[in-house]
């Protein structure tokens, strides 16, 4: 993939876990670049490795194999202190905003914490920065600063989490399902806030979600994951109009809005995601794929480019079948 202005590039990254003595790959050999200033959507069902990818990027835990390069530096080669420096420009927002905030600390302490860790001694300067960032995310500093997280709604807690992520003026924010735990009306507010903050602070976002409708609106490009591997990567408009991978098409068919279902959209997905402990041979999606053939079981499809900027891991992409 072209990596001229990539802020973050992941090469052959594998994350392995041990479950009851058995090692298995939660994600295996994924390669992707995230360009500066873009929003990359990462979608897939629960357990496909989306969150693991996000955590591996911030090195918590670090990937088992492969390379994560951020601002031209390989993160696995950094020592402890260098990594701490890098962390400030590489932040994360989680799904559950209530669990992301320490229940026993005040909002001003929570938001100021990154500054304290970075060694800012001046308390008045810290308070000024906290006020500034709280105002930016739409939380009134005067009423919020001395309260504790449980006195806020989920949406407000997520705003506070965003404020905490922003206070060090990071380059990249990994958004791990940031709106999944929120009401639909609040989801839109938080998405708008993320867009505004992206513009104001010049951010690059990795937006992880299982909700395609949410990802569609916010992303420039969308990557679809299945069982620890990418199956499709394309511009947001392209992937929603003409999905090439049967899995993507199946996911599209699950979006309730009729107008977004393309002509090529296959039937809704059947069955459940296989266990990553024992993935199917060949193409990992073949057990649920309506177009599966013998070749799919024998040979693992390569993640190849079928048109400019459109990658797919399928022997029989839908766009080629249709033409």
């Amino acid at each position, binding site marked *: 993939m072209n990596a001229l202005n990539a802020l973050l590039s992941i090469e052959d990254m594998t994350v392995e876990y041990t479950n009851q003595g058995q090692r298995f790959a939660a994600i295996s050999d994924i390669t992707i670049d995230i360009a500066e200033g873009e929003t990359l959507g990462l979608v897939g069902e629960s357990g496909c490795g989306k969150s693991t990818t996000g*955590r591996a990027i911030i090195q*918590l835990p670090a990937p088992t194999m492969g390379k994560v390069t951020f601002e031209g530096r390989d993160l696995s080669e950094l020592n402890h202190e260098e990594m701490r420096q890098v962390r400030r420009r590489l932040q*994360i927002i989680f799904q559950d905003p209530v669990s*992301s905030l*320490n229940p026993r*600390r005040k909002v001003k302490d929570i938001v100021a*914490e990154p500054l304290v*860790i*970075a060694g800012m001694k001046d308390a008045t300067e810290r308070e000024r920065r906290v006020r500034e960032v709280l105002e930016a995310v739409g939380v009134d500093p005067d009423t919020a600063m001395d309260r504790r997280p449980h006195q806020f709604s989920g949406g407000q807690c997520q705003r506070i989490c965003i404020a905490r992520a922003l206070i060090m003026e990071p380059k990249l924010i990994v958004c791990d399902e940031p709106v999944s735990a929120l009401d639909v009306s609040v989801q839109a507010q938080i998405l708008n806030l993320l867009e505004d903050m992206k513009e104001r602070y010049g951010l690059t976002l990795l937006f992880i979600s299982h909700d395609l409708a949410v990802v569609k609106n916010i992303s420039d490009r969308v990557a679809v994951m299945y069982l620890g591997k990418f199956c499709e990567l394309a511009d947001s408009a392209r992937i929603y109009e003409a999905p090439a991978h049967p899995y993507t098409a199946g996911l599209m068919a699950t979006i309730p809005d009729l107008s977004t279902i393309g002509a090529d959209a296959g039937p809704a997905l059947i069955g459940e995601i296989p266990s990553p402990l024992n993935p199917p041979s060949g193409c990992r999606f073949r057990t649920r794929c309506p177009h599966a053939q013998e070749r799919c079981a024998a040979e693992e499809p390569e993640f190849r480019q079928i048109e400019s900027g459109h990658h797919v891991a399928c022997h029989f992409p839908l766009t080629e079948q249709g033409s």
Partner: protein
Amino acid sequence: MANGTSSSLFARLWPFGNREEIVSARIEDQRRLGVIFWLATSWILLILAATISTNFLPFLDPLEQDYAAVNERWGAQYWVGTDHLGRDMFSRLIHGAGISFRVAFTSPFIGMAIGLTLGMCAGYFRGKVDSGVSILIDSILAFPNIVLAIAVLFFAGPTIINLVLVIAFYTIPQFTRVARANTLLYAQREFVVAARAQGASHLRILLRELLPNVMVPVAAYSLLVMSFTIVLEGTLSFLGVGIPPPTPTWGRMISEGLDELSENPFISMYPSLFMFLTILSLNLMGDRLRTMTDVKASSL
């Protein structure tokens, strides 16, 4: 307040009531401390106040023997009577409480400091640290506690400091377990990952993020440990390895009264009753606070 609590207690015991009422009463019951909690607290505070007041109120000397009034029942001079040596039992009970309370208020703190450190490290770092700590805790529990305490007090001398230290040693496993369990629970929360993503050190996460959360259930648990230390101190005194005579302690008073049981059963009965009420009170308070600070209940 008292009315509300008693009705909710009634609702819990009465099986034929309106279900909705019972449920709402239960929720209310969880928020309130309840009349039993306040009775228990009053007893502890009363004993504590009496113990402190021995320093400036004119209590009778607990060691002075009045041979003209041996084995007296209650009266104007000796409020709850005298023992077989003619010593004022009321004064002895209050002074004895002093020893029990000194042990009960200091030992758990030493045990808590060590237990918190061990338990939080085990719960946070997991892996080898966790295995190491569990081996340590299992070895402490493997010592028969009375035997070790007797040995230590015999060789090091039965001073109050040695007594406090030996009893503190036995509170370590309990605190370690509570601290470890709560640390495990909070260490999985995303605010800990967020702190690491900000570059916080392990020490900072342990002290700033985890300790304030783990401290609450551990502090509530310390009341239950206090009652355990009073029992252990009483047992050691009863066996004659506690604070040496003539200093009055509840355990020794019970053991001295055994010989006089047919003559004057009150010598053993009063300290037993005091110890029973004190332990019951501490358990009731500790149990109530533990339920209130329980993670499951508070995270709702």
